[in-house]
């Protein structure tokens, strides 16, 4: 068995977790990412202990909002000049930088204390599937998705389409009206 010091380092070792943001609702995804950033998924969790993990989020440009939140939701953005905070819709904000929406959602979801900026440094956001190798080699596990992304019709195979349950089977001479 490891010594006491080794045991301590092992217990509080940091993990690198992969999270796929493809077609995931942004607020719920942020809530789940925060759980792992703060270390709430560990039985040794304590709010004053720095026991959080690194989270690598990919496909942030394909993140989702429900209803008309892309138009309705506003983010406060500073343009860089003095006294120029403007309200930008989520759609424009996302178009400006595809990682910003997830970042802002996670930032607002984290506890509002001095640890917030330290925790944000352990969040790594990538707009697409490409991860640098130095980050990719650290990955250990994935974060389970908030919801399974639905499949498009062209992604189904022919067997799956044939075996799909149907409400009624139209007769051979059935012709839809227009």
């Amino acid at each position: 068995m490891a010594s006491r010091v080794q045991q301590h380092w092992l217990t509080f070792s940091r993990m690198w977790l992969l999270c796929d943001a493809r077609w995931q609702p942004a607020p719920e995804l942020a809530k789940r990412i925060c759980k792992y950033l703060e270390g709430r998924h560990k039985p040794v969790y304590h709010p004053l202990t720095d026991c959080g993990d690194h989270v690598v989020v990919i496909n942030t440009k394909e993140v989702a909002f429900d209803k008309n939140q892309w138009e309705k939701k506003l983010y406060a953005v500073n343009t860089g000049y003095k006294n120029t905070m403007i309200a930008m819709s989520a759609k424009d904000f996302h178009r400006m930088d595809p990682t910003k929406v997830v970042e802002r959602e996670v930032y607002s979801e984290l506890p509002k204390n001095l640890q917030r900026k330290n925790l944000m440094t352990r969040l790594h956001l990538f707009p697409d599937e490409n991860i640098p190798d130095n980050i990719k080699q650290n990955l250990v596990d994935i974060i389970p998705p908030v919801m399974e992304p639905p499949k498009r019709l062209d992604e189904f195979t022919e067997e799956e389409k044939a075996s799909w349950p149907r409400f009624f089977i139209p007769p051979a001479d059935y012709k839809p009206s227009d």
Partner: protein
Amino acid sequence: MFLTLARYARSPPPDKWWKRRYVYNNTWRFWGRHRNCYKIAIQSMQHAWRAAKRGRREKKRFVRGLWIERLRAASEEHGLSYQHLVVGLDMAQVQLDRKVLSHLAIYEPKTFKSIVEIARISYGEGLMAATGKQPEGVSLGSCTGTRGSFKGDLWSYCKCRNVRGGLMFAVFAMTTSPRT
């Protein structure tokens, strides 16, 4: 006793030094004039006492919340929710509290894993009993404890503990699929 006016006039005042000494004993760690000047010191001492009393109660609340948070993390690691863990252990008449369970989850992880298995079986058994199916695997419901009417199924458990939501669920389950 001040039997005469002359003795009353001559009686010494209460010892101011010891009165103040008591306050300074309690404020010796405070900052600046809060430890030296009596008027400020006694105010800050009373303030510290109020905060300490409040803290004694808040500490218990915080620690219990922390146990629950840790148990939620530990049980979800084994694929069981916290609610199912607690209810399942209660149904199996395992009377470990949250403090001991969270301690086991950190220091004796293998023991905790088997405890989670007990909770899972017991909770599933209760559901199966409510829906009229026979339990499979290890039978934990056959033990008879101090709760007389509890026989291991969800129905009698709800009757025992007067669980309202669970009772409604059991009634619903039994009316839809009555026990054979």
